[in-house]
């Protein structure tokens, strides 16, 4: 069995790449690259039928599908990535946003990135492993009489490691920094990359500063383009420091450590699941560790009841939060919402996204109880409003707020901003290049415009196709792209499309059952 290497590499740390050499102008400016021009530039070229750019969860799930359902051998697939293992970034973001390995993530029992069938579910696996019926009972009673069952982070990561070994992920991984992709004269694509220092591509005798992969189909899943830093936060950091005002998706352990040493006040901004996790960490430090931290929680939109235009479109809410079990309403992943959005175009689709949009967090009994304690004792209070200005004053962060009643100033020792992972796709080098040179365009929500099979519109190249999945394809015919199950649905669409194009095998009922049995027995493929 192949062991995927370097899983001990710290989560989230990409290797340092040398300065990338300049590209010859003939290649830099050309929308299509001819083989002779690439060879003339002295760039070594390697071939693979399918290349996935990204190497995170999107690449892993797509490649898993291609290996299992499509029956494509590892020799025909290459994953170009600057991270060592696919869940490295995910694990980092989960960790800093306060989900320990034993913590439960916001994902359904059957959303298994390591298993095409979602069966056995995480709940069933946990029940068997721990010899307890509790997880199954929870699934049985959810969501009416129990919180949604959600798996522990550690179990999810371990299961992905097992699957990565099973499909021999490491045999397909090329450690590098992808600079750009271009269509090839005659069909297919080039992906240009700078190899990771000291890691030759395909055992090249002489390490080259630039290497190209030539492929027929290319898949691009770079994840979120970046963190969302609101202007007030950026302004504060330019004027003062990076210490007192932090984004929840950055490592901000120093805030909790400082609050353990002396009493303080924290301003938390945001109403999503990350805000809930940060609040839970602060409250646990108080209840279990004795840190007498006071919390001021700022909501831009304060939700104080069920909300929605009519009785058939009403979401629960209270105490500022809008409640929803998962990132999207459950019917996004297969029910009527998925079916409806698939048929919508342009403005109608954008409107549907708006209807289901908004920041939400799950209603969990434990969290509710802790917040209620805080409200009652007075150490947790909420405020509706937006920040007009952030400044330092006598070692305190002072936030000038615009609130419904006028203006208000809040003094705190720290501010934790939980406003999310978002960024313009053009901030990502490869995506920007696709928009400028690859024929790609934006969808009604500003991300990459893909069709129902996740083919990047306008970017076809001869008999080759470019596919984009994950957060970059948000706004398309399927809304839940940036979730485990969403990535699996996208992967299924991609692989089914490739099967229709004769590039891989179609997964029918018999072979599906046979592949599932291999998964159950852990057989390497």
């Amino acid at each position, binding site marked *: 069995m192949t062991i995927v290497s370097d899983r001990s590499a710290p989560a989230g740390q990409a290797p340092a790449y040398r300065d990338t050499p300049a590209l010859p102008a003939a290649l830099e400016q050309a929308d299509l690259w001819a083989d002779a021009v690439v060879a003339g530039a002295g760039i070594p070229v390697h071939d693979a039928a399918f290349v996935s750019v990204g190497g995170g969860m999107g690449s892993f799930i797509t490649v898993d599908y291609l290996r299992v*359902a499509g029956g494509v051998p590892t020799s025909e697939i290459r994953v170009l990535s600057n991270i060592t293992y696919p869940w490295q970034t995910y694990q980092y973001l989960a960790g800093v946003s306060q989900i320990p390995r034993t913590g439960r993530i916001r994902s359904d029992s*059957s959303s298994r990135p390591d298993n*095409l*069938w*979602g*069966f*056995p*579910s995480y709940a*069933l696996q946990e029940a068997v492993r721990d010899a307890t019926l509790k997880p199954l009972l929870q*699934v*049985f*009673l*959810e*969501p*009416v*009489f129990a919180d949604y069952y959600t798996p522990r982070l550690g179990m999810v990561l371990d299961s992905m490691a097992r699957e990565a070994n099973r499909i021999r992920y490491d045999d397909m991984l090329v450690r590098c920094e992808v600079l750009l992709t271009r269509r090839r004269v005659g069909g297919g694509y080039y992906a240009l990359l700078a190899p990771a220092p000291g890691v030759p591509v395909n055992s090249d005798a002489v390490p080259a500063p630039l290497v190209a992969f030539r492929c027929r189909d290319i898949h691009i899943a770079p994840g979120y383009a970046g963190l969302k830093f609101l202007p007030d936060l950026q302004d504060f950091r330019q004027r003062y420091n990076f210490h007192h005002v932090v984004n929840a998706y950055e490592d901000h352990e120093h805030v909790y450590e400082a609050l353990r040493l002396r009493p303080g006040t924290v301003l938390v901004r945001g109403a999503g699941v990350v805000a809930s996790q940060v609040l839970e960490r602060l409250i646990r430090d108080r209840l279990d560790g004795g840190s007498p931290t006071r919390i001021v929680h700022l909501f831009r939109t304060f939700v104080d009841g069920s909300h*929605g235009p009519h*009785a*058939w*479109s*009403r*979401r*629960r809410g209270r105490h500022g939060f809008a409640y*929803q*079990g998962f990132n999207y*309403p*459950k*019917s996004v*992943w*297969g*029910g*009527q*919402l*998925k*079916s409806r959005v698939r048929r919508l175009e342009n403005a109608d689709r954008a409107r549907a996204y708006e209807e289901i949009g908004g920041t939400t967090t799950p209603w969990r009994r434990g969290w509710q109880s802790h917040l209620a304690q805080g409200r009652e004792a007075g150490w947790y209070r909420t405020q509706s409003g937006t920040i007009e200005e952030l400044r330092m004053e006598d070692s305190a962060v002072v936030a000038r707020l615009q609130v419904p009643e006028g203006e208000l100033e809040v003094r705190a020792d720290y501010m934790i901003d939980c406003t999310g992972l978002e960024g313009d796709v053009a901030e990502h080098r490869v995506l920007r290049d696709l928009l400028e040179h690859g024929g790609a365009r934006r969808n009604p929500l500003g991300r990459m415009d893909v069709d129902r099979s996740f083919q990047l519109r306008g970017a076809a190249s001869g008999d080759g196709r470019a596919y984009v999945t994950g957060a970059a394809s948000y706004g398309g015919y399927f809304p839940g792209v940036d979730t485990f199950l969403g990535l699996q*649905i996208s992967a*299924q669409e991609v692989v*089914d499309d490739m099967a229709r194009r004769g590039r891989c095998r179609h*997964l029918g*009922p*018999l072979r*599906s*059952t046979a592949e*599932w049995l291999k998964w159950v027995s852990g057989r390497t493929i």
Partner: protein
Amino acid sequence: MVPTLLGRVQTRLFLLLVVGGAVTAAVTPLLPAAGPLGARYQATYAVLVSVAVLGVGWELLYQLLMQWRWEKDWPTLFGLLTLVPEGLLVWAVAVRRVLPGLVGPVPTAAFAVHFVSVWLVVWLAANGPMRVPFVRWRFRGGRVL
């Protein structure tokens, strides 16, 4: 699986036909009922068909009720508990002798054992094993075709 209306109906018909049919074939000889085996099979399959046919109406009602749920989902628990109203309706139809294919009286115990065993196995199949051969089923709202 989060259903669409078409998916609900297709899943019900498919699972009752394949899984329900197999369970019926297995349990009918064991039911506490008198009469020749052929007549018993005729009765149990008549009940099975009625669950499928009446069920299309039930699915319309469930789909309507589901519209009040933000998630537009149908929790696992609901899928099991609906055996109560559905079982009572089929039972009422059966004892009034208006069920096509039924020729004699239907013993309560035999009906209950058959109905509940079919329901339980179909419910269990829909909550996991169905996804093994039909890997696209759950993403298509339960559509088999």
